[in-house]
């Protein structure tokens, strides 16, 4: 397992949006893709993935369609919608602002106080 980090609350949605914005994926594919692009550094409880997908679908941020998987089984593929792309952009910007601020705060030295 090595060094994995727990997800911060609220970040799973952003990661799912990011994953499906690269390419339409089925649920399991979303999981694999997040692990892959995060360099296996994030631990995602598998069961929590689906409620998040259903919530995003209901919010109209992703679309679902049944298709055929790599091993020729019927699978539900998720694709980001225009609204989802917009949301992803906002969330990424927000995230960068947040991490930037936190980084700056953590980098503070006694001189600067």
């Amino acid at each position, binding site marked *: 397992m090595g060094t994995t980090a727990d997800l911060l609350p609220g970040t799973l949605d952003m990661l799912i949006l990011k994953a499906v914005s690269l390419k339409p994926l*089925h*649920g*399991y594919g979303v999981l694999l893709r997040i692990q892959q692009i995060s360099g296996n550094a994030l631990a995602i409880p598998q*069961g929590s993935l689906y409620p998040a997908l259903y*919530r995003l679908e*209901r*919010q109209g941020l992703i679309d679902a369609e049944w298709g055929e998987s790599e091993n020729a089984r019927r699978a539900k593929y998720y694709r980001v919608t225009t609204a989802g792309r917009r949301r992803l952009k906002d969330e990424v910007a927000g995230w960068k602002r947040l991490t930037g601020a936190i980084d700056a705060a953590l980098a503070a030295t006694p001189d600067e106080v």
Partner: protein
Amino acid sequence: MAPRLRFFLRGLFRRRHFEGAMSDELQFHIDAFTEDLVRSGVPRVEAVRRAQLEFGGVESVKEQCRQSHGLRLADELRQDLRYAVRTMARTPVVTAAVIVSLALGIGANTALFGFIDAVFFRTVPVRNAHELLFLAHHSGPAASSNYPLYERYAAVEPFAGVTAYLVGSFRVEQAGGVEPVTGQFVSGNYHDVAGVPMTLGRGFSSEPDRDPSRALVAVISDAFWARAFGRDPHAVGRTITVNGRRVEIVGITGRRFYGFDSQSRVDITLPISVIGLDDPAFFDDHTGWMPLRLVARLKPGITEAQALAAADNAFQQFMGEPEQQWVRQSPNADRFRSAAFLPAARGSDGRRELTEKPVRLLVAMAGILLLIACANVANLLLVRGASRRKEVAVRAAIGAGRARLIRQFATEGLLLALCGGLVGLPVATWTSRAILSILDGGPTPFVLDVTLDARALAFTTVIAALTGISFTLVPALRATAGSVALVTALRPSESTLPRRRFPAGGHVLVSSQIALCVVLLVSSGLLARSLRNLKTLDAGFDRDQVVLANVDTSGPEFSPGRRMTLYDTLLDRLRFLPGAVSVASSTRTPIDFSSRNNRIVVHGVNPVGFHAVSPNVVTPEYFRTLGIRLLRGRVFGDDARADRPKVAVVSESMARFYFGDEDPIGRTFALGSEDSITIVGVVEDVRHEQLTESTPPKMVYTPLAQSTVPRGVTVMVRAAGNSRALEGAIRAEIRRLDPGAMVSYVRTMDQQLDAALARERLLAVLSSGFSALALLLACVGLYGTLSYSVVRRAREIGVRMALGAGSATVLRQIMRQSLMMVATGALIGGVLSLWVSRALSAFLFELSARDPATLTAVITLLLVTACAAGYVPARRAARVDPARVLKAE
């Protein structure tokens, strides 16, 4: 928003599909994970276990998915609906009563909505109807004009186009003979400018109206196409004979387009150039003014004010010309002051003026009916809500929140309302059919398309939903108010029930229902009595058992000789019809919607100003046939021939007006183009133009044999027995004598009068219907409230009977309660109706709006009905068996 609603509905209706898809998806995940583990070297059994373990509990994931998919609301709604259906099925009588109450209220309102929609709101189905304007001048919507004026307007710059139409009755040859069909002559650009939709073929192309070379074409309406051709797709190109000319059908207009004249339903349209074939002077007649209506379409971007200024300029120029001098000097000069616009989007609005007031009255009545129905429903649900306290307490105890409980009640209410709305639709259809059948044949025929369309459905849905929510809220709030301790609620004694005799509110509801009911009953009673006054009014003639048939011989193929032969032989033939007592003909009949005035100069009477009398040309037997009594002198006989001195019979009013107390017999006057006519007799006054007219017209009857041959007469036959049997015989006789003559109508005098009373009859019949329903509903309400009170007080009644109260005492007591409610309602209603009925006085004929007889009759009727409704539960109370009730404790 949209996907949420979609998911909600999908969750509601495609639940099984959702569940299946979700299982498949999760299973796919677990399987794919297992395969990956196997591929990485984990033994299959171990892989399956690990995949399941890492995924977590499938059921709990599913539940989370359902929640995040927004299914909880849908699930609860489904529960609520199922529960509501079960509750409704458990109390079928209350449910049926509620649904029927609502159906009646909603149905009546929907029908009236359809009616109002058709009269007031529906636009003529043409392209961009709101851009169209009637060109009028100050005489209002029925502005007259003529072709030269139309040409002036057509040249006005800010108009994208101006067109003209002239509505009339066309004689059309059909299988059964010549039939009257409503038609119009239109300018060649009519279909273009107005943007008339075509079902088949084309409209007229914009050829100059003055060129008659291509005038023999026609456009027919969709309805005429169905009637005459059975919607034969090859009808375009066929010919029909209209006004004696063969014309080729070039197009069929779209459904629901019947021209711009809301008082007629145009079936055949001919180009105006066809008028030029008979009357080439038509296009240059500056002095004649006729009901030629002008419709203009504004150029885009031009304001009405700009267009009006330009139009008025053209109009003023036209009116300034020497030909119009007589108009400028006529008493009506004021009506030709300036050009004016009227909106044409909804057609000409003569009918709206005529129907607005009665319709408003009916809307108010239907609204009251709906209120009563709602009160009824609220009452019944209140009663049921009170008896459901136990259930509510149990549900609250096991954790249902108040909001959830109220939602449950609201669901039930909506479901009931929707059922009521559904059942109300046939009621609405039936009511609107009744409205139309009553109005049919009135002075302005009601050519309405009162079909229930999407708008009416939307309307019904909205009122159903509104009533549903409003009448369930009160019972819901009451039933859930205060936390009734479960223990108390479950105790089987009466202590679970509020300590009132009636469910609070029920009493008030019944009384207000009764009060509203009184208002409706009084109104309808007044209207019905007024109608009876009109029907039994002595109009100066005997209306019973007279058949009228109008013969139209206005075609160019008729010479005066042919006309006269027809009129003469027709009367001779009709005399020999079995059952014919007397036979006559005339140019007009009383209350036939005609209005005519002729200038008169009475010799020896100072001619002050312009005098007019109402003329009628009749055969000698006219007076006997209609039962108009002779007061002085004699009726002209067969001596009144063309070669003899001209004679006339005048009415009492005419004689009194010109001669006062002097003897009018032998006096002479000039009428129209006749210089000297001698009065030979005076007859009784007749109400000729309107039944309600306060001053009878000054009638002058001249003999048919001495006047220019009219282009149509009405023949009338007084029958010994059943007059209706004669109708077919008269029609057949006319056909046989001259197949070219057109029978415009055959009807009894009674029907003719009824048609004139269409408005009054509509009001009387509908309001009586409404108030009968209101009475029925109020009785159901009273019955329901009392029955419930009796059931709840069974124990108390039992105790009292055990202590010696007789059943008569109990009966009396319950009846007293019932009467109290009714009396309170009746009192309030009586006062209300005194106030409300003032609005009715405009509709009443020779009747006071505070007619005491009507009020007394209404109250009596109400008391009797209410006693009957109260008696059943009261008797049930009197039959309570003390032993059984007390044992039940």
